[in-house]
């Protein structure tokens, strides 16, 4: 019952929740979404796909394991605000190096705790994800609601350009091992692929490396010709934040690459999957409140096996995309919760993609075989 600074979260529909501040102080806005994973807050904070969003954790005790140097998915914290029921100020974990509060302060991200996150979650579930303003300065509900209403939504915003790398870089580093950190893979790379960075999670790159696939990570706006000039063995389209449609330069690049070099294996994850869909003529749709969690059942329609997957997306490739006459793509994976599209592959070309996150981090490792699939395509070539 120590005196804590107040903080307010106001939603565009007029809903206002009061709580207490942790992390940085200030004011920020974003699309308010909820994440149902019980572990992995550090990975969530550092996942560039949350750019432009205020993330509510449905699990109630956050901060338990502190922050360590090994579990970051990128170089920074990208989301606009972090909402929890109870922030645990004293972490307990042998790898913890700092508290969540310190980390958020360092990265200038506002946290709010002590509010009814279940109410917020139910509200977002019923009303849909919506814009919100998180503030520790202006605490006036009416002001904040007005600000939330004035703030832009995710639709039509190119957020990838805000989170992509500035310069290309090479990546070849192994998956995390207890006591080892991220060791260099024992063998030199067998393949070298181009990875278009729309906000790539490092564990994707590690997943590739651990199979002998080195990546040249390229800024999102790298044109097709430049990519092909690198003579890569394959192309990887990364995850990333928000709406895929405004990432038109990448959609165009993919279209061009497929045309110029149809035999090039392509693998897309999440936003990369949507961009692939857009490149082949589908219209993406926005989900009511998206999928953000680590327990989504996805069925592989070929084997009927079910994987428990990590997910984080608000937009999707619609199912009717596959119903078109002469459609080049076939649906390969389905979400069993709401029957949304989770994966597809080209009927003739070595191109496939998934909506979920086979690299996990956070979440179960059930779907890592997607990386093997990419490796197979590289080998077949």
């Amino acid at each position, binding site marked *: 019952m120590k005196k804590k600074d107040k903080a307010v979260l106001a939603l565009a529909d007029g809903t206002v929740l009061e709580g207490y501040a942790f992390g940085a102080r200030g004011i920020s806005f974003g699309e308010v979404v909820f994440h149902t994973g019980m572990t992995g807050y550090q990975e969530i904070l550092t996942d560039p796909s949350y750019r432009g969003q205020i993330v509510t954790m449905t699990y109630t005790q956050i901060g338990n394991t502190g922050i360590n140097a090994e579990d970051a998915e990128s170089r920074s914290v990208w989301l606009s605000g972090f909402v929890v029921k109870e922030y645990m100020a004293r972490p307990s974990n042998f790898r913890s190096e700092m508290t969540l509060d310190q980390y958020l302060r360092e990265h200038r991200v506002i946290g709010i705790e002590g509010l009814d996150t279940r109410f917020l*979650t139910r509200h977002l579930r019923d009303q849909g994800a919506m814009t919100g303003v998180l503030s520790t300065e202006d605490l006036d509900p009416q002001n904040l609601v007005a600000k939330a209403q004035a703030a832009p939504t995710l639709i039509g915003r190119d957020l990838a350009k805000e989170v992509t790398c500035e310069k290309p870089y090479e990546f070849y580093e192994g998956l995390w091992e207890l006591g080892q950190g991220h060791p260099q893979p024992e063998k030199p790379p067998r393949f070298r692929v181009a990875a278009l960075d729309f906000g790539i999670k490092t564990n994707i790159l590690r997943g590739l490396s651990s199979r002998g696939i080195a990546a040249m990570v390229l800024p999102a706006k790298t044109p097709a010709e430049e990519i092909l000039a690198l003579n890569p063995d394959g192309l990887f389209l990364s995850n990333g934040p928000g709406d895929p449609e405004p990432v038109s330069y990448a959609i165009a690049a993919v279209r061009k690459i497929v045309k110029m070099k149809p035999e090039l294996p392509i693998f897309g994850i999440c936003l990369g999957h949507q961009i692939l869909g857009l490149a082949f003529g589908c219209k993406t749709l926005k989900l009511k409140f998206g999928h953000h969690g680590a327990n989504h059942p996805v069925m592989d329609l070929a084997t009927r096996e079910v994987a428990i997957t990590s997910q984080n997306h608000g937009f999707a490739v619609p199912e009717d995309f596959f119903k078109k006459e002469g459609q080049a793509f076939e649906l390969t994976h389905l979400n069993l919760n709401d029957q949304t599209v989770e994966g597809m592959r080209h009927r003739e070309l070595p191109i496939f993609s998934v909506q979920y996150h086979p690299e996990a981090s956070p979440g179960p490792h059930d779907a890592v075989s997607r990386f093997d699939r990419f490796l197979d395509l590289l080998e077949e070539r």
Partner: protein
Amino acid sequence: MPKRNDIETILIIGSGPIVIGQACEFDYSGTQAVKALREEGFRVVLVNSNPATIMTDPELAHRTYIEPLVPEIVAQVIAAERPQALLPTLGGQTALNLAVELAEMGVLDQYQVELIGAKLPAIHKAENRELFKQAMLKIGLKLPRSDTVHSLEEAWKLVGTVEYPAIIRPSFTLGGTGGNVATNEKEYEEYCKWGLQESPKHEILIEQSVIGWKEFELEVMRDLKNNVVIICSIENLDPMGVHTGDSVTIAPAQTLTDKEYQIMRDAALAIIREIGVDTGGSNIQFAVNPGDGEMMVIEMNPRVSRSSALASKATGFPIAKIAAKLAVGYTLDEIQNDITRETPASFEPTIDYVVTKVPRFAFEKFPGAEDKLTTQMKSVGEVMAIGRTFKESLQKALRSLEIDSYGLEERIKHNGRKPSPAALKKLRENLRTPHSRRLWSIADAFRAGLRLEEIFQLSRVDPWFLQSIREIVESEQELKGVFKKSRNLDPAALRAAKQLGFSDRRLAVLAGVSEKEVRQARKTAGIEAVFKRVDTCAAEFEAHTPYLYSTYEREDEARPTDRQKIVILGGGPNRIGQGIEFDYCCVHASLALSEDGWETIMVNCNPETVSTDYDTSDRLYFEPLTLENVLDIVREEKPFGVIVQFGGQTPLKLAVPLAEAGVPILGTSPEAIDRAEDRQLFAELLCKLNLRQPENGAARSVAEAEAVAERIGYPVLVRPSYVLGGRAMMIVHDRRSFRHFAREAFKVSSDHPILIDRFLRDAVEVDVDCVADGTRAVIGGIMEHIEEAGVHSGDSACALPPYSLSEEVVAEITRQTKAMALELKVKGLINAQYAVKDGVVYVLEVNPRASRTVPFVSKAIGRPLAKIAARVMAGKSLAELGFIEELKPEYFSVKEAVFPFVKFPNVDVLLGPEMRSTGEVMGIDPVFERAYAKSQLAAGTRLPASGLAFISVKDSDKAAAAGIALNLHRLGFKIVATKGTAKYLESGGLLVSTVRKVKEGSPHIVDMIRSGEIAVVINTTAGSQSISDSFSIRRSALLMNLPYFTTIPGALAGVEAIAHLRRRGLSVKPLQEYYQTKP
């Protein structure tokens, strides 16, 4: 994969009587399985020896056998029913072991019965320590270094290499029976010996200690298509070294990062696949080094377990039900999630609250047992609480325990002064050695100024949990300060406190006001509990199941209906004296009222039970059974009435305060309850009805008590008032020992007087359950105890109908019971206890509520008494219900009690007025002696057909013992006796060999018992000296698993049963057939 259609009949084996380590969670899992398989159209055959289970209700399975759970009996069931499949994974270790035995005996092959769920090799791989170790090494997982040994010699060979502390774990035992931690060579030898003895396969594992490491559990499910999901992760607050059944456990795991958690998850998937559990649930335990995260696999249960029951309640994912469906061929994605109704079962539940389970201990019942927690489970029950934070759920769990605790009260009082060095030393020791009150010790340590780091070093409780306890303690200090300043209980502080989980009652203590005042202040400030739903998915999908818990937040999701509703208060944690029987009654009440169109609302906090299955009642509130929490629910639901008489003492205690708060109590009025419980009013009632009770008196001081005893004359029965299960009740034979026991009774009695009754020596005790509707009373059953009066009714074997009472006595007992029921205007159940001596009937006690024997009686007569009673309470008459006359079955049902003595070294097994049994079994047969033999077999006692019988009895029993000895002799037994008894028997012309008493030196009787020469022990004793002299006889008989009788009536019945068994073996018959033959 759709369900299999090559199976028609499935056999399910239950887990038998409630014992430490195996409680009503297996009634929950078995009941779910039977229901699920029946729904799928299978013919279900069930065997279980425990009548107080919902699974043995005759309408649940197609064929229900209440028979002993031993291979030869189950083989008879298989021969009679010819099931195609046996599902062994839902009846605990008992069912699993039995299935293995049946397979190894060739019975399953002979009758072509397929094991479904887990096959024999998988069971072996998981249960055999050596095979398990090999399997784990194969998939690259680490285990603590260990060696398997089968004899003491082998164990000795290891002595040089063992690092202390070393853990001794017997194979194939439940609840870690026989497990121990040896810290030196002497203990090593002792514990190895005990462990070898306890293991049915004489196999123990000597394990490198990972004591002090963190302990985790994962609940895993797999389907036939190799899909695996984790239902729940559980973190133990107690470190390795405390049995998980005795640990405070928390879901979900709190101190693992995602990376570390995924290592564990990957391991769990690999383990269940490698072991090859085909379908269903398994529980896997891990130890994690807090210093570097190194992980080791501890063990795996290839079946549903106590933890799966907890995980089901903690997440809303019904593991046993799904396991049953997977066993018959479905895959996870083909099964719907009941709660969301739109998503499949092939997912991993995610929760948005914290679940805390706290075990309930009963050390006070076993003088001599040390309150020290080790690798062998000692708790008798548990509670679970749900809160939005750990602090809230912990505090809710504490007040659910029924130990008169409402938070982390100070156990060490120091009135603001610094604790003395001696007190600090004691406190440190209390932190170092885990015991049942360790949470309070931790709180006290913070109050005494110990640093968190030191408390961690001593207790090895993870700093994360310590920090939360510290925050609770610090909040208490702050609250005290705030409340001191503001006389009107500052609303902001009050709200913050409620969010931390503080009870009104604890806040009252902190504020120095009454609980009522706190509640009033709270209401005035508009601070009310809200209710949230348990939905498996953290609100991502809509929950259609009203499974609720309270918290203090913004939104209330209870959404009460406008139907006519009845609230049923459950029984809380299992403990000795209050167990599954009361849960059975609550479930029956709910089912009956639901059938009659009422909306039923269950309130309970025991995760093991059927009552807390969200499927049982229309609405479930998983809440502590305290006045505060019940009033919150009543405010929310506004029920037609509340039923308090089915859940035992716990809800009954709430009857008066609830009534005072204006809550309508259904059934017998609280005044009538008081009239039966208050001794003065009760005496007046008996006087009015012209009924007799043993001479008695009450006393408020030891001197007064002595005067009463003198007036009545010894022996007397001394007992405190207002206690359950005969706590601190004693029979005192002389003035010399009276003072001591009177003092003990006062200790337990607190403010209330103690009661002194004349003890009727060698009287027959009788228990009666009766239903009344205010104008009519009908006897449900009259049970004649086998042990004489003086043995607690819960510990005594009993027969229905009476096997020796005359018709006149039975008629008189019937008359008296009805007279009292009508005079008290009982609406519902009433239980009366009598002693019959020389044909005279004395009333001992009357309780106008459901008794422990209601399920037994219901099973014995084939009528559901609790259901009838519930309907009466809701307004129906017995005439309307068609229950207007007594039923007298043409077969005998014998109930026998089951005791936990083996878990408590140094505890005497003698029976007395204090109840110590944990569970019960039932034997049914047209012949009394055979029903008795079945009850003994079911309770784990194999009566021998021949051999050497040892007899040593007190003087007053010698004449009776001579008759028993003669009978044994006629049956071909040889007799051995101690000097005095031998002399007496020989004087009657019997050939008896003499053996030395222990104090007379080796070779003595205990040597003979240990070497396996004795087949049966008959040992009665009186007086503290001879009791302690003969202690080792009874104890070694117990450890050798010999039949032992400590009362003459018990021995008589036992010998008669042996005679009958020699004539013809036991046979089996389902309840459904017994009921058809009833008059």
